[in-house]
Every structure is written in C-alpha cells, then in structure tokens.
C-alpha cells in the first residue's frame, strides 16, 4: 500500500509541476510532505519485515537444533507484523467473487441502466451467494426495484441512467 501511495503522490506532484505557481501550490503543500512520509513509512515497513524474517530464521534454527521435538510457542512475543493473519486462498476467492458482483452491478447499470440491472443483480446475488430460495430472492428483487422507483424516480425526481445499450437493444427488438 505504501508503494502504491508513493507512486500516486509522485505522479500527482509531477503533474502539478506543470501548473502555474498558484495552482500547483496546494498540491505541493500536500504532496511533497506526503512523499516524504511515504518514504519514511516504506523504511518502517522494510525494517519490520526484516525483523519478521530474522524472527522466523531464529525460530527455524531453534527447531533444527532441537530436531523439531520442542514446539517453541512464541506467538505472544512475536512482532505485530507476524501476528497478522495471512489472507488464505479461500478468502481471496471470496474477495474476488464479491468484487465480481460489484463490478457486474456497476457494469450492468452503465450498459443496461438501473431498472433492468437492479432486480437481476438482487436475484443473482441472493441465489448464488446467500443461497436463498427463488421466492425470497424474487420477492426482495421486486421490493428493491419498487423502492428505487418510488424513492428516487417519483420521490427525488432523479432520472435514472438508462444504460448505453438499452436503447439499441430495444430498437432492435421492437423497431
């Protein structure tokens, strides 16, 4: 994360350097100290990971000496970075699946509009992810679409995004 942040700040400060002095002043005021802090954080991260490596090496060495017969339970003394639970492959799969749903929702709204995407998304998510029954999923999909229509379209008078291909599809289907 630190590296990502550092890259973002360097890019933004670099872009700002092309602006007139008054316009680049604030990006410099925020960006340059941020770059310095990112470098400091990077140093702290590297130092921490080195400690973790040293700790792991020491543990392995002890384990080798004792032939692995003694379990050195050093969990409580381990540095904070070691204690953090690693992300298992199952977790990553769930994360990717959820991101897929979210991107599907946004992509669906952009392509087909709110009114077509929302009921489909609710049904697919509830059936596939939450493993609910068809009737429950369909009922909630209808409820969500109705609330969306009543609150946003009738209540707040917001014209929902119609979708980029909805018009094209409707034209093809119905002329």
């Amino acid at each position: 994360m630190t590296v990502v942040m550092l890259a973002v700040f360097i890019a933004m400060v670099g872009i700002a350097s092309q602006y007139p002095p008054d316009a680049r002043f604030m990006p410099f005021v925020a960006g340059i100290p941020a770059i310095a802090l990112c470098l400091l954080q990077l140093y702290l991260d590297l130092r921490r990971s080195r400690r973790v490596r040293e700790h792991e090496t020491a543990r392995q060495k002890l384990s080798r000496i004792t032939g692995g017969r003694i379990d050195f339970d050093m969990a409580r003394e381990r540095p904070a970075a070691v204690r953090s639970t690693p992300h298992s492959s199952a977790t990553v799969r769930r994360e990717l699946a959820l991101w897929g749903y979210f991107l599907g929702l946004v992509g669906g709204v952009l392509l087909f509009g709110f009114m077509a995407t929302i009921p489909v998304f609710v049904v697919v998510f509830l059936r596939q992810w939450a493993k609910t029954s068809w009737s429950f999923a369909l009922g909630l999909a209808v409820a969500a679409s109705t609330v969306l229509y009543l609150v946003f379209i009738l209540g707040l008078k917001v014209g929902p995004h119609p979708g980029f291909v909805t018009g094209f599809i409707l034209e093809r289907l119905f002329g």
Partner: protein
Amino acid sequence: MIETMFGTLFTMLTTPYYLWLMLIAVLIGIWVGITPGIGGKLSIALAIPFVFGWEMIPGAIFLLTMHAVNGTSGQISSIMFGVPGDGDDAATVLDGHPMAQKGEAGRALGASMTASGVGGIIGAIVFALMIPVLEPVVLAFSPAEFFLLALLGITFIAFLAGGSGIFKGIIVGLYGMMLGTIGMDPQTGTARYSGDYLFLWDGLSLVTAVLAIFAVPEMIALGVKGGAISAVSKEAAKYSYRQLFDGVLDVPRHWWLVIRTSVIGAVIGMIPGLGGSAAAWICYGHAVQSSGTPERFGKGAVEGVIAPETASNAKEGGSLLPTLFFGIPGSSGMAILLGAFLILGIQPGPTLITQNLELVWMLIWALVVGNIMAVVILLFFARWVALLTFVRGELLIPFVLILCVVGAFVNEAQWENLVILVVLSAIGYGLLRADWPRAPFVIGLVLGPIAEESLHKALALWGPGFFLRPLSLVLIALIALTIGWAVYTGRRQSLAIGTGAVAK
C-alpha cells in the same frame, strides 16, 4: 442567546415535518445500531445521497439524530447475546451480559437504554454550556489558524490509528487533501487533474468518495467474513416489563454516577483523537474505582452497564463541538458527519456562532429529542428489535451496494461517478485490507479546499511568516506533540514486545 435557545426548541416541537424526520431518523438509527454489519459511519455515508439537496436544517437534524441514537440500540446485542456492535458497546458486555445470564436481561436493558438517553441529553447540555465559553476562542481564529486546524484535524484522526500508524493516517489524510484539489483552481482557473473531463471540473463528488472509501469496502469485508450472529438462541431475547422498569429506576438510583460519567464522556468527546471507545472504557474504570464493592463488577453489576452507556452517548454532544466550531471531528463517525454537513452547505467555523446559532441550537435539541424518542421506542419494543440481530449480514450486501451505486449517481446525475466509485472503492478496500485508517481521507477531502482557501488568504495577509502568529504556534506545537506522542507510544510498544521476548 436564551431567545434562540428556546425559540429553536419551540420550532422543533411544533413543526411536524421536523418531528417526522426525527422519528424516521431514530428508527433508521435503531435499525442500523442493532443490525450486524452496518455501523454508524456506514449509515451516515449511505444516508448522504438521500439528504442531498435538502435544506440545511432538516438535513442536519436527520443525519445527527440518526448518528446519535446508533449507540442506544447497539447495546441490545451486547447485553442479550454478549456480542458488542462496536467498540463503544464492548465495555457494556462486561456486566450487561452476566446480568442477562443471571436472568436480569430486562433490568440491564432498562438501565442501559435509560442511561444512554440521559447521557445523550447531558452531553447536549454540556455542549450548550460550552458555547459561550468557546465563542471568544473561535472568533479569535484567523485564516492562518484555519489552515493549521485542517492539518491538526488530519493529525488527530490519524492518531486514532494508534502508535506508528499515525504516519499512515497522515498519508491518507494528505491523499484526501490531494484529491480535494481536483477541479478548477479558484485562484488561477486552471483545471487541475481533470484534463478534458468536464465532470471533474467541479471537483470530486464527496458523496461518491465517502461511499467508495467506507461503504463498498465494508460490504465486501462483510461478505468475506460473514456477519450473522444467529447462533445465539432467540430465547435469550425474552424478559418481563417489570424487570425493564426496575432497570429504568436504576438510573435515578445512581444519579451521581450518571452525572459524573456523562460529563466525563462529553469532555472526552471534545478531545479529538481519543476515540469513541475511550469514553466508555474510562467511565467503566471510573465506576469500578469509585464503587465501595468493586468485586461485583464483571459479574453483573448494574453500575457497570450504566457508566459506559452514559459516557458513550454523552460523548456525541461533546464531539460535535470541535466538529462544528473548528472543523476537527472528534471521531471517525463525526468525520463523515462533517463531510455530510458540508454537502448540506454547513461551513464549520466561527460563522456558525455569529450567523447560524439557530442551526447549532437545532442540532443540540435534535440530540436531546432524538435520544428521548429512541429510549421510549426501545423501552417498549426492545424485545422485538433484538430479533434484528438475527438478520444475516449477507442479505444486506446487495441492497447496500445498490444504495452506493444509486447514491453515487443521483447527487450529480452523471454516470462517470460510477467509474470514480469503482476506482475509489478499490483504493478504499486496499486501505481496509492493509489495515490503514480511512477516516483521515474524508477529513482531507472535506477540509482540503477550506485549507487551500485559508492558506492563500493567510499568505496574502501576513506573507510566509503567518505561522509565527501566537495561536498558529500553539497549533503547530499541538500537531508536533500529537505526532511525537504517537511515535513515542509506538516505539514503547515495540520495545515492550522485544523486552518481553528477551525476558522469556
């Protein structure tokens, strides 16, 4: 001031529109407080699209009332099932759940709800009493100090990350500030970071940013870990109204403790950076220390329920003070609330006292009336409200995600905001997964433009030496002390870990 004080109360109580809004806000706040997976911060972020375009006073009343009553219902799952909704409620578990296990769930609930309500009201009173004290201080602040206050706000919120995490917090805050510069520069008319994209010329949509950084990552995290606590028996939710009433009477029985912990909670709320849970835990400790029979605590002492509950609700009134008058939110929840206030057109700072005191009093009364409403509703319906705890978190995910997408779209009716939502959500989730604080981002984004304007004004008035003004020096010292203290405690923690290992 007295006229404004009672005039606003009269207006609030005689305007059905305000009362309806508050009732809806209280019901949503109660629902959010008890439903697993949705916290107070998330509820404000999700409510922003709905209040967008509302008038200042009704919008602010709605959001504040909703935020203020979150904690009142959050304790139900703590007491009945031993599952705290958030950090604030964790202290209540210590004695609340043992009471429920002893068959005194009703008494514990009655005491905690009444204590929460009374704490919220006393917190609002402390806030009101502080206005005349703070007025000259706030009015003494100039653009130079407001620029430094923005930096101080980021530093304080970053401090919540704890120890050496303060650097991460400040980096995230500065990132928010950086993104706050996107759009047309008010000084030169240069389009910064927006190129030919017209939708960016007015700046990044705050609603989209808040939803992306908080709501979407929270939902993905909820989906990954799952969020139901339905393993607990529904039988635990049963109790008698006689017990409940007995619990209500426990609050006047311990009136001196209630007043002490409420005032302590409100004062802690005024100190940005201490965090919400601190008030509850400090007051729990105070209740134990001041008790003649401390051995009862942890086994079901009603004072152990009353003290943290009064404190955690009283702190809301206290934390509103730095949020409104200095633009420094006292907690991460207040940070998002501040962003929402800005969207409604409420500018934090001295103008609130000089030109908008009516709004300030409306907010104070909203805290008082909202808390009373929440207590009355919960005292009657808590047993059924408790059943909301059994809602599977997974079922909420699609609806919250839909709200996020709709919310990002409706405030400017531009599809491009959906793309921004995805990009910022990825950053928000990256921050959450890497355990970086996210609240400073909102502060940076919200206060960035104010800080830039103040900085330009300060430079025009006093030149580069503006930070040598006495008040500015005090603020710079506070920033340095906060960072220094965070680094010191971070080092001490890591040394303690090292020493522990050697001693072993």
